[in-house]
């Protein structure tokens, strides 16, 4: 993105304004695809006009006005469009359009933005489409930026977005925040998409990396937007806290020569205090107001990340607390991977003997059949218990399962000790 010039300014305005513009337009026309079309039209106008006329003092209002004019033009001209509005059950089709439109656009846009989030993450869409649509309509990212972030051709992303919008229209997905029990499930769909985007930025597998941290940042930004819109939802704060606490370690994870630094060896002074403080504040807000209520999975994970964040030295880590949080997480999720994590925490809190029982109980778990960390953790516990021969066999088994060369080398080295 350019630093200067009108084009850079238009892009910047677009990033700031596009989500609420699309959200307000969707409310008007009842269809995200159509809404985005109108919003894009306004963007094109801006690109044409602003270089000559200069960027207006209130660029967001300018874009809104242009988009509104386009919708009204189409409305007058296009009988089908008019019928569609009636079809969608919009009372506005029967009233004076303009007044209604003004009212819609000047209203508090938060509710529309929230509806747009729920639409973008709708369960009728495949996960990848949810991610693409969220980044595009809520993040204001271009198809090209999304494509580069996910290392796929631009046409793939464009197609994904087009299909997603058509699917939403075909399925008659309503522009609304669902009510009742459905709401919780849908909210967790939204959270899942944000966390997916965050992790994509965090764990990038290959390719151009410069956009990757931006994906994590975008996920955090959308998390903050959501937390402003739904301040009473503990899990929204839980997810945001989790992302901020994980991101706080970003700088410390790499040594002076670029080598990765494991948690226990990180220079904790390099942890990002601003993000830690934000994460800890978010964590407090993620606790259910009624202590008898169970904590959500994001809140629990944020709790674990926070226990690391507040330990000034590795030996100050509250492993008992971490083990308890993992236990609660296992109860919520039933995940054997989390149970394995619990075993590691228990070994730190109570020693290898206590942990070995937990790990041994996992040996039959199908989900962990090819999971190299199971034998790796078991090997470490056996080694610490002095059962060297068994440890060696487990290290070798783990080395055979991992697909990461560096890790394999490390495991084989430990097997030889």
């Amino acid at each position, binding site marked *: *993105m350019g630093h200067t010039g009108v084009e850079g300014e238009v892009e910047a305005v677009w*990033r700031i304004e596009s989500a609420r513009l699309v959200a307000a337009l969707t409310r008007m026309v009842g269809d995200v695809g159509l809404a985005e079309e109108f919003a894009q039209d306004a963007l094109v106008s801006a690109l044409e006009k602003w270089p000559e006329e200069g960027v207006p003092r209130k660029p967001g209002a300018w874009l809104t006005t242009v988009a509104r004019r386009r919708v009204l033009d189409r409305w007058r001209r296009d009988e089908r469009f008019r019928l569609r509005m009636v079809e969608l059950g919009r009372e506005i089709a029967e009233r004076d359009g303009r007044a209604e439109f003004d009212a819609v656009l000047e209203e508090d846009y938060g509710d529309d933005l929230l509806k747009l989030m729920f639409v973008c993450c709708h369960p009728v869409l495949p996960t990848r489409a949810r991610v693409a649509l969220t980044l595009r309509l809520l993040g204001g990212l271009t198809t090209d930026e999304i494509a580069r972030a996910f290392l796929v051709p631009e046409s793939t992303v464009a197609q994904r977005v087009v299909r997603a919008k058509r699917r939403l229209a075909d399925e008659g997905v309503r522009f609304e925040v669902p009510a009742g029990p459905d709401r919780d499930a849908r909210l967790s769909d939204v959270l899942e998409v944000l966390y997916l985007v965050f992790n994509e930025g965090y764990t990038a597998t*290959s390719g151009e*990396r410069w956009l990757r941290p*931006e994906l994590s940042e975008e996920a955090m930004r959308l998390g903050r937007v959501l937390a402003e819109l739904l301040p009473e939802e503990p899990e929204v704060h839980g997810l945001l806290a989790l992302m901020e606490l994980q991101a706080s370690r970003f700088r410390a994870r*790499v040594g002076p020569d670029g080598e990765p630094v494991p948690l226990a060896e990180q220079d904790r002074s390099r942890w990002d205090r601003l993000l830690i403080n934000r994460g800890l504040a978010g964590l407090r807000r993620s606790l259910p107001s009624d202590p008898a209520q169970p904590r959500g999975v994001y809140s629990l994970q944020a709790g674990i990340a926070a226990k*690391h964040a507040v330990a000034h030295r590795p030996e100050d880590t509250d492993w008992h607390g971490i083990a308890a949080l993992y236990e609660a997480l296992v109860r919520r999720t039933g995940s054997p991977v989390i149970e394995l994590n619990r075993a590691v925490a228990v070994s730190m809190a109570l020693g290898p003997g206590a942990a070995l029982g937990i790990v041994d109980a996992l040996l039959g778990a199908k989900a962990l059949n090819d999971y190299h960390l199971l034998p790796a953790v078991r090997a470490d516990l056996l080694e610490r218990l002095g059962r060297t021969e068994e440890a060696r066999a487990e290290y070798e088994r783990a080395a055979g399962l991992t697909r990461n060369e560096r890790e394999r080398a490390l495991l084989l080295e430990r097997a030889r000790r």
Partner: protein
Amino acid sequence: MRYLMSIMSTPETEARDWEPAPEVYEAMGAYNEEMARAGVLLTGEGLTPTAEGAEVIFRDGEATVVDGPFTEAKEFIGGYWVIQVSSHAEAVEWAKRCPHPPKGDPTEMKLQLRRIGEIEDMEGMSEELKEREWNLRAQQENLNG
């Protein structure tokens, strides 16, 4: 990327009895709210006049403490925000939206934008090593929480 956005002090804000007018508080509040709702505001604070501060000047191994107010009142930070944005232009765009003296008011107001250093700014780290760093994150997260 993150930017430190600072609002520079003026002779007015440096005055001992300076207190923003209620409408200034209100406008700033609305501005902060707008940035918070857009998910870009990470933190921000206002600073008291430099009369309440001090400068520590080192010369020839010696530290000299000079109590405020500082000279050159326009050169100092009166308040700051830390914002997270996607581009330099976006940071500038947010800065331009800061409440300011209206047309016809000759009072000058200045904001400064400084990008906060991130991992990409680390010198002497090869692209390949950065790449490896990204790769290892997931695995570490798995077992470390």
